[in-house]
């Protein structure tokens, strides 16, 4: 248990430092134009990466499992303009269903 509590303590400090870095270093200054152009495109880049890694990665392995079916169902729900909460529940339900039958 000592390792667990030590990890929690150190990680609290490290994680807080990472999150504070941008806001403290950049301050309230407006960023230059080139930086603003990159930042405007960070959302599609990072969100797309989060979607595919959360769906197709298992540690360092690439896998095609029940989560892919859940994501596909979520995609259809998004296309049908379903509310966020419905999209999330559909993804979980389809993933659970596929796991139950395979």
């Amino acid at each position, binding site marked *: *248990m000592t*390792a*667990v*509590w030590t*990890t*929690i303590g*150190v*990680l*609290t400090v*490290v*994680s*807080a430092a*990472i*999150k*504070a*870095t*941008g*806001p*403290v*270093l*950049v*301050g*309230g200054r*407006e*960023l230059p134009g080139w*930086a*603003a*152009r990159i*930042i*405007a*495109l*960070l*959302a*599609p*880049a*990072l*969100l*797309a*990466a*989060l*979607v*595919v*890694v*959360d769906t197709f*990665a298992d*540690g*360092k392995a*690439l896998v095609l499992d*029940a*989560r892919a079916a*859940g*994501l596909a169902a*979520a995609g259809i729900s*998004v296309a049908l303009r379903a509310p*966020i909460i419905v*999209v*999330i529940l*559909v993804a*979980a339900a389809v*993933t659970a269903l596929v796991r139950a039958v395979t």
Partner: protein
Amino acid sequence: MRATADRPQARPAGVRNWPLRAGIRAGLPLMLPTFAIGLSFGVLAVSLHWDPAAPIVMSIVVFSGSAQFASTSVLGDGGTVLAAVAAAALVNARFLPMGIAAAPAFKGGPLRRAAEGQTLVDASWALANDEGRFDRGILIGATLPQFVGWVGGTLVGALAGSAIGDPKALGLDAMFPAFFLVLLAPELRNRRSLEVAIGGAALALALVPIVPPGLPIVAASAAAVVGALRE
């Protein structure tokens, strides 16, 4: 959802116009998925024979799902404290570019900015982002319901633990990619953003087998740099 922040001031002045209000409302749909993932985390931690207090304290003070899962799985595999912290730091390295992007939205001196920066989480960052400009009320406000969901879920998972069984059987791990897809969808209507999204996704997937977990997400930032250079 972004539009709620810009609604004309029809309400009476005072508490109702508290700037975080729109953010809290924007973050409410996130309480369920964060509760569900928090519950999964609590169950995982007690399955590794952790004292139930540990995951609960960790969710309060670390408050970062991906970093907590990463460090916990390293410890569960017999890794050292250093390895566990390093894995979590890599997973959370995306908050460096995200924090730089959102920096102009925070207020006050270095200490206050450092404190406000602690509210950075993926979903709030994406909700507050309007073409690279960030709404402070949403950035901070949308995190509050997620904090409640995250800590509450961990509490239930850690205390109910074995009674819940395997959270994966309920498909809870598919909730976050589905949520990120909802946030990504409007970006895909713009041709340049669509190209950057495809580039970021391809780069991240290509790196998964090669680099430690977490880094593929950070590396996807390169797609935004390439996209900006081509403008």
